[in-house]
């Protein structure tokens, strides 16, 4: 079995807001294996982006990573010096974002922006960087690369800009590519192309991908392994086939029911009733209890632990605990 590339151990990241402390990432543990695509799913606000930014060590005030470890190849990133961390960012771990339209600096040519990490991390000369940049532009499937090299961002469409972002991310051959909702802002056909591109990259370069999404369609298409988050906690984790065949947590079951089935008309889309709880006033209970149709008395008294079941399946729900109803 492949080694763990990244391992989150009891990670905690809090935001100190005027309304109180928001536990955006609350005791999160999971691992990303080398060359694997791991999807992190969950409703908006459940802490997916903050988890990724914690890995990059780019959580900015009022947020603070205050506990746990993030092991990268066995080394705890949270103890590295800022200088060492800069060497990891963009070089070992790269990241792309949701908004391709605004993710490129409007005053620089595309070529300059792809060359920059090559010059900084790989010590290339301008000329070498240009050659490599043009290869990268071709690699992400944009024709007439030499011409694109000299273009400005405003001359490209959203889909092309996201390809350029991917080219920049890939420039230094990272071991891990974090993609935070990379297709959410794109229209459906372009989405499919970008996902295709990411799949090809994974198989060609053996890059591990941490793909953040709230779209289970994307998960089904891309993931090897899935982590489901709710209100800052991992509530279920499993290989993708296992998760889709046998979702354990009522929240995951709800998400799967909420997914529209293509080519099949439904009178009304199923949505999970209720709302994500106020992240400030969370107690010692199952955070999903007020939306759960199986809620039991223990669910409001005690938080269910994340336990491991057969087929590398983990879930945090009292329904599957022996002592559950006791």
């Amino acid at each position, binding site marked *: 079995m492949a080694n763990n590339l990244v391992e989150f151990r009891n990670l905690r990241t809090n935001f100190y807001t005027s309304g109180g402390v928001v536990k955006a990432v609350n005791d999160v543990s999971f691992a990303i294996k080398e060359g694997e695509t791991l999807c992190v799913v969950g409703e908006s606000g459940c802490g997916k982006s903050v988890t990724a930014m914690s890995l*990059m060590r*780019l959580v900015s005030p009022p947020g603070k990573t205050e506990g746990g470890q993030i092991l990268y190849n066995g080394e705890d990133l949270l103890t590295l010096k800022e200088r060492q*961390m*800069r*060497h*990891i*960012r*963009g*070089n070992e771990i*790269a*990241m*792309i*974002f949701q*908004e391709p339209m*605004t*993710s*490129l*600096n*409007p*005053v*620089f*040519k595309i070529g300059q922006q792809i060359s*920059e*990490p090559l010059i*900084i*991390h790989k010590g290339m000369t301008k000329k070498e960087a240009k050659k490599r940049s043009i*290869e990268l532009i*071709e*690699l*992400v*499937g*944009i*024709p*007439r690369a030499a*011409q694109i090299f*000299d*273009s*400005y961002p*405003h*001359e*490209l*469409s959203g*889909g*092309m800009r996201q*390809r350029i*972002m991917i080219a*920049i991310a890939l420039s230094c051959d990272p071991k891990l590519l974090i993609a935070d909702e990379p297709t959410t802002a794109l229209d459906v056909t372009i989405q499919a*192309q970008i996902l*295709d*591109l990411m799949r*090809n*990259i994974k198989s*060609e370069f053996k890059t591990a991908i941490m793909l953040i999404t709230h779209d289970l369609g994307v998960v089904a298409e891309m993931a090897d392994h899935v982590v489901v988050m709710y209100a800052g906690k991992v509530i279920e984790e499993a290989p993708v086939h296992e998760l889709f065949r046998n979702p354990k947590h009522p929240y995951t079951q709800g998400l799967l029911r909420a997914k529209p089935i293509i080519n099949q008309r439904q009178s009304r889309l199923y949505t999970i009733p209720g709302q994500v709880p106020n992240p400030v006033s969370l107690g010692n209970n199952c955070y999903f209890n007020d939306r759960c149709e199986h809620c039991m008395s223990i669910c409001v008294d005690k938080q269910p632990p994340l336990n491991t079941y057969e087929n590398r399946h983990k879930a945090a729900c009292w329904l599957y605990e022996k002592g559950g109803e006791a």
Partner: protein
Amino acid sequence: MAQAVDTTSTNAEMPKTKPASPWTLAFRQLRRNKIAMSGLIVIIMMFLICFVGPFLSPYSLETMSGPSNKGPSASHWLGTDKLGRDILLRVMLAGRISLLVGLVAMMVSVAIGSTLGALAGYYRGWVDTIIMRFADIMLSIPALPLLIILGAVLSDIQVPPDQRIYLVMFLLGFMSWPGLARLVRGQILTLREQEFMQAAEVLGLRDKRKIFRHLIPNTIPIIIVVATLSVAGAILMESVLSYLGIGVVPPTPSWGNMISAANNLIDFKKRPWLWIPPGVCIFMTVIAINVIGDGLRDALDPKMKK
């Protein structure tokens, strides 16, 4: 390296025109602005006359070139002063000094203002507080009285006239950075939150590179506009100080100290050729720079239009 995906699918997304930088676009718009272009022509003429003109003049400043206090004539187009020096030559040489003072003061102000403004906007917190409080203090002190005091101090400690012009340049530049710093800070505050800065962050860049390579270039339109207008401001301020005898002092000529001839009632009434030419030069230069600045503002930053 192999191509990861088939490229034909993206052919339709290709840009249609050949790459045009935002600068080219802005310059094209500036070219269509007739008023700004005439301002530009005036300034270019002014620079040419002041910097090339003296080489074509048959006279030199050190020697008396004619009878003193004579009005315009064929040999001295703008007449001569009380020491018999050719006024046209003096106006051109004074222009060199005045334009140079304007340019250097602008550069000093841009260097200090954009750097401090960017640092304040990028780091926020106590860095921001210190820099901006300092800027507020400078903005709340009226410039003219302060400059008069400093000018008087310069005269008191008897700085030699040729070194004095450099001090005046730096002084004027140093007085005018807070306005620019405020504008740059405001822009950096919003720019630093934009996605492309997050994208720069994940590339593992140093702060220095993020500030000077990624953020400040995005504020260049506003810097250019403010810088242009500040050249005019510095020229005007230099003239005022020199007129009062505490800026650039004779024998170094400047438009301002040439106008001070008008202080003398006889010169003012009877010898207008002494003070009208430098006055017209200041007037034309300042107006020209201001219309260029307005044109640049319209071309570079459509949001700033009223």
